[in-house]
């Protein structure tokens, strides 16, 4: 990995961590488990669209591990990891299929899969099938927040595509 790319990826990781920590200070958007803005996903989207899926995975992994070290909540790590893995897989596939030109669609798909993963984890943790009734609420919130983060990524990409370090 070139030093320049390493530096840019490290910068993105730091940004993601900063966004994540600021978001964790905000009060919950709705009193339902699993609903959040997911603003740190903007960075994952940016790296996914500017560089490769492998680089985005590295940045995401570094962010998750560092945030677990800094704000550690072992329990929430389990189900956000479950959602995060599904979300990342879906976004990688979507950005490839869409030739990296529609970050908002990619992001919405990521949001949907993030929430499906979270519900599956909650189902495993609580072992109560009743938690499935949260799914429609989570899916709607995932689509709305996914659209928002996707649009943020689109506007950021418009400027970042001029970066000489891209690809």
């Amino acid at each position, binding site marked *: 990995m070139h030093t320049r790319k390493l530096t840019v990826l490290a910068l993105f990781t730091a940004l993601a961590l900063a966004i994540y920590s600021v978001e964790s200070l905000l009060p919950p958007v709705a009193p339902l*488990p699993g609903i959040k803005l997911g603003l740190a996903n903007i960075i994952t989207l940016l790296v996914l669209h500017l560089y490769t899926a492998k680089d985005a995975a590295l940045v995401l992994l570094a962010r998750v591990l560092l945030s677990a070290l800094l704000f550690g909540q072992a329990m929430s790590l389990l189900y956000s990891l479950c959602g995060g893995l599904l979300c990342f897989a879906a976004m990688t596939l979507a950005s490839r299929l869409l030739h990296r030109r529609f970050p908002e669609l990619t992001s919405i798909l990521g949001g949907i899969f993030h929430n499906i993963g979270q519900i599956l984890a909650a189902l495993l943790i609580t072992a109560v099938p009743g938690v499935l009734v949260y799914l429609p609420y989570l899916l709607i919130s995932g*689509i709305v927040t996914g659209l928002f983060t996707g649009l943020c990524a689109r506007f950021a990409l418009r400027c970042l595509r001029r970066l000489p370090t891209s690809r």
Partner: protein
Amino acid sequence: MNTLSKRVWLLAGGIITILGCCVLILYLRQSSIQGSDAFTACLYQDGRLLQTIPLDQVTETYRFTLDAANGGYNIIEVSPGGIAIVEADCPDQICVLQGRVTDSLLPITCLPHRLVIELQPGAPASSYNSPDAVAY
């Protein structure tokens, strides 16, 4: 139409279909709970049914503490026709923020303590269950 725009429309259509289904499910659930006013609260911890409380038979508000397996606690307030988690030592406090629940629309969940309180319409199968443990 080239492959890319076909994929875009397919994905957008799929997303809108999911959104529509979710709104429909929410609407149907909302209208299905209207008309029933007697609910039974079922408390699950670690997937086990701990106790059932017929909320229409509650005449006085009382509180009790549920200890979680990992050392945490939830203080539950049972009132006539409703149930709420009023205090918990979990980090996110989502269960407390959800407030008093009086219908079966949404269960109260405390994921860190693996606790779910689900309201079901009607009386429980067994006529009356008193709480196993009450701490005031």
